[in-house]
């Protein structure tokens, strides 16, 4: 039958026609632009406005960067080189690089020390930041604070070694005693470490020139280095204090709870700048007569208090977000309070609080520039004081502020990107 049909028709197409290409407005970049840039008339207006804004900004900034002068000695020479054209005098950054990074007073031939400390910082935070890094690298993290102290402030090598030895003694005593009772372990360890440090004091006095690096006093620190020191030291000190404050605020004990509440709310209620005023002019009145705390130490104390109050609130949020069943499960296993907190509650609560803690850390790092107001020469202080006031670079605002902003942006943006990555890594719930 089929061949009669074939005979009766002149032509049968056996394969289908190739599909016609979609209209040009429905494919590729044109479609994308239609959907994402010019979907409606208001949208199109917005797009044009944004294009105009981008053009205005770029047409000013690009010649400023491409015409930039890097080799001039001072602003007059730079203006001569530019000869009226738009362009930045970026030579201020290269010429004053050491001041911007290390401050004025840090001895020039010792710059390798903070630089090395910075490199080691990156190496030693690596195992903390990335859970997949080899665990043995954590040893590096543990000894880092001692090494960094020695590198930046100088002095005999005995100082970091004996301080570390004291900490090890404390830890050994703690781990012996903690099996029976957390409080005994904690206070025992603390006492043992204190005794060891006290003994170490004599040894350090005796051997003050064993492998000594040149000593640099705190007030010689400056530039971006000062911001880094303040940020790193205060954030790491404020984490444990913040945890204790948060636990205290959640506690059933009336007195302890109220001490924590008053402390936290007081600190959070006042601006950091007033706390820095306290460090600058008031704190000295409350210290024992004759004691000579230098300004940087007083500032570290106040910023640490400030940060720990904020971190305490973040961690309290994490503690409150844990389901009640976790607390009850810990109780029904017969764990006592320190065990329950260490083994069940805090690991989960801290995990929930990571984004908040990172936010506080970024905010704190940004706030370290406020020390320039109490006339310390951090990055902003250096720019406002010695550099802009010098006759060589008077009036080079944009390059310097742009540099400072860029530096902070790079650091803070990478920290916040890291925290988002970590959050995804730690996500154990199924979505």
């Amino acid at each position, binding site marked *: 039958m089929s061949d009669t049909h074939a005979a009766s028709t002149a032509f049968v197409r056996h394969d289908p026609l190739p599909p016609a290409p979609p209209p040009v407005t429905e494919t590729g970049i044109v479609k994308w632009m239609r959907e*994402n840039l010019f*979907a409606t008339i208001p949208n199109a207006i917005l797009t044009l406005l944004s294009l105009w804004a981008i053009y205005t900004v770029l047409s000013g900034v690009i010649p400023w960067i491409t015409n930039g002068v890097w080799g001039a000695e001072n602003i007059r020479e730079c203006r001569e080189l530019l000869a009226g054209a738009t362009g930045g005098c970026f030579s201020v950054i290269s010429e004053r690089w050491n001041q911007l990074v290390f401050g004025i007073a840090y001895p020039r031939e010792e710059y390798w020390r903070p630089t090395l400390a910075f490199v080691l910082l990156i190496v030693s935070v690596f195992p903390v930041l990335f859970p997949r890094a080899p665990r043995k690298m954590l040893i590096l993290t543990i000894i880092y604070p001692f090494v960094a102290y020695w590198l930046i402030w100088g002095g005999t090598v005995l100082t970091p070694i004996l301080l570390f030895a004291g900490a090890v003694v404390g830890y050994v005593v703690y781990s012996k005693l903690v099996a029976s009772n957390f409080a005994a372990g904690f206070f025992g360890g603390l006492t043992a470490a204190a005794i060891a440090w006290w003994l170490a004091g004599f040894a350090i006095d005796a051997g003050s020139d064993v492998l000594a690096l040149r000593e640099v006093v705190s007030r010689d620190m400056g530039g971006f280095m000062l911001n880094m020191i303040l940020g790193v030291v205060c954030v790491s000190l404020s984490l444990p204090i913040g945890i204790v404050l948060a636990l205290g605020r959640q506690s059933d004990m009336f007195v302890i709870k109220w001490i924590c509440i008053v402390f936290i709310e007081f600190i959070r*209620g006042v601006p950091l700048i*007033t706390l820095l005023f306290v460090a600058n002019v*008031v704190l000295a009145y409350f210290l024992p007569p004759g004691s000579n705390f230098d300004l940087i130490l007083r500032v570290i104390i106040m910023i640490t208090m400030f940060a720990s109050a904020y971190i305490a609130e973040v961690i309290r949020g994490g503690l409150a977000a844990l389901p009640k069943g976790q607390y009850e499960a810990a109780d029904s296993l017969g764990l006592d309070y320190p065990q329950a907190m260490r083994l069940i509650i805090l690991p989960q609560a801290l995990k929930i609080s990571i984004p908040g803690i990172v936010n506080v850390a970024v905010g704190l790092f*940004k706030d370290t520039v406020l020390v320039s107001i109490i006339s310390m020469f951090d990055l902003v202080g250096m720019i406002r004081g010695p550099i802009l006031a010098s006759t060589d670079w008077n009036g080079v605002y944009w390059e310097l*502020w742009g540099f400072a902003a860029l530096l*902070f942006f790079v650091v803070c*943006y990478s920290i916040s990107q890291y925290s988002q990555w970590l959050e995804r890594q730690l996500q154990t719930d199924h979505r």
Partner: protein
Amino acid sequence: MSAISDETEPSFRLSMLVNDTRYRSLTFQFIALILLIVFMAYLGMNLVQNLATAGLNISYGFLSEPAGYDINQRLIEYDSQSTHRAAAYVGILNTLLVAFLGCLTATVLGVVAGVLRLSGNWLVAKLMAVYVEAFRNVPVLIWILIINTIVITLPAPRAYRGETPDAEMLFGMIAYTNRGIYFPAPVWGSGSLIVVGVFLASIVGIFAYRRYAKNLLYSSGKLLPTFWPSVALFFVPTILAYFVMGRPVTLDYPALQGFNFQGGLQVQRPLIALWLALSVYTGAFIAENVRAGIQAVNKGQSEAAGALGLRPGRIMNLVVLPQALRVIIPPLISQYLNITKNSSLAIAVGYADITATLGGITLNQTGRAIESVLLLMLFYLVISLSISMVMNFYNNSVTLKER
């Protein structure tokens, strides 16, 4: 048969203070209290000793002494013969002024940027992301100094002088100079009170009309237009009253006299720098809060509203925003608190807020460090505690009552 005798109530032993959970917490609290008292006493004794050594005392008498310094930007009468207390009041008002202005503009900026960041327009969304990240990741102090620099590069007042001036006033009435921006100021002539009264009455009228329209809609289903009548109510009666009363409100234009502009309303450079910097900086944070709030509303909500046949504008107004506001407002209020606290950076650009007057010049002139800093902290504490009280009150009123 063995009788189980009741255990006799054990008598109190000293070891129970540590081992018995009933008493242990009391022991801990007692120790904490003792430690606190000892610590406070230690600080207090140090203070007394240090003050004695330095020959100082704690006294607030300096507040009544003449301050001896001038303040440019002020909302109340003040001159260099006024007391330190008056200077502190000027400072407080200036803090509140910049905080209020900053909150207003930061909210507007933040809401616009937050909504636009979720827009379907790819370019605009990316641009807003750049704005948010750029401002959130750079210290506010640097932004204040950058904007201060921008204002400094505006033309000097003398650029407006001469036959062919280098700079021209905007619309012939706004002068922007490196000392500040000068706006025309309204002069309230006789009868202007009536104009203002009419204006206030027409605002009340707008609310009354909208309420009437809503009641009518709910009771009879009749939908009255609300937008254009509101606009008309806003403008028409006031303009009519203005002409009927013989144009009592006139404008005082700033004019160049001597080395500077005189007359008009002047907003000085420090205030502009601080206000703008705080607004754009905090606006970036508010934008993130707004975005988070809108994204927190379940997508099913807007789909359900769409299925009911609501138009996109109404979905936003009636379904998404009321639910998003519950998430947005608490962080928004803490951003307001941050603006108030960050306004203490005024000292960096020379704006005379409370930190710059009481904590800056007064402190340096009188040497009363403890008293000044204490008062300063007290002021900020009062502000932030009252704001957090408002926030707790709001939170309690909007919390979903769930069982």
